């Protein structure tokens, strides 16, 4: 088990950022699910900046807008919440 302080600080920062993201999705999930069922939704600075059912296409849309797709909040709006998953 490693306990490097710098790693812990990075992890703590990631979890703090996740709480902000959680708050956004919790507040907007129902609305976004209605608007964009079965699509990936990309959010930057609290605004929807691109949507697509396909991750590659979403990347292209974001690149076209000059947005770094790895620094955004992205979530799939699953319209079938009873979907059975067998992995």
């Amino acid at each position, binding site marked *: *088990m*490693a*306990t*490097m302080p710098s*790693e*812990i600080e*990075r*992890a*703590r*920062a*990631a*979890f703090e*950022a*996740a709480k902000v993201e959680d708050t956004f999705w*919790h507040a907007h*999930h129902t609305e976004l699910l209605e608007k964009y069922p079965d699509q*990936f939704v990309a959010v930057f600075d609290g605004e929807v900046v691109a949507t697509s059912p*396909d*991750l*590659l296409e*979403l*990347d292209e849309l974001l690149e076209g807008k000059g947005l770094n*797709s*790895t620094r*955004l909040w*992205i979530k*799939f709006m*699953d319209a079938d*919440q*009873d979907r*059975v*998953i*067998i*992995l």
Partner: protein
Amino acid sequence: MIQGFFDPHSTRPVPKVRVSLFLPGISTDDAHVDFLLDTGASTTCLHPRDARAVGISAARLLLPDRWPRQRSAAGIGGSSLYYLVPAHYAFEHDNGQWEIHEGEILVAQLQPANERLPSLLGWNILQRFRITAEWASRQITLENV
């Protein structure tokens, strides 16, 4: 003790745990990933919808020649190509302590069939814990063994 959770957006039990993930040589910073606890997975897998958060674009996932270490993994839906990379997993205990494990992770090649799948926390990490999942009380815990 580490607290997991059942996915609040699913009507079925989908047990998950939040991990801060760092991929040396790929990530510039940690990112959180909510992994599905998968006792059927021998190793941990990062699927495309979570890969971008740790610094991997969808386009990069398409290209096997950019990934020197590769594995074929078998699942219910058939066999898929994965890229094997080092990974640091950080878990937060409910007392505020952190636990970090260094290991590896399989990063999935982007395919239509896997781009919506959750990432899986498998036995290369799960072996360190005693796992309790109780749907009735909506509680999931991971304790060190």
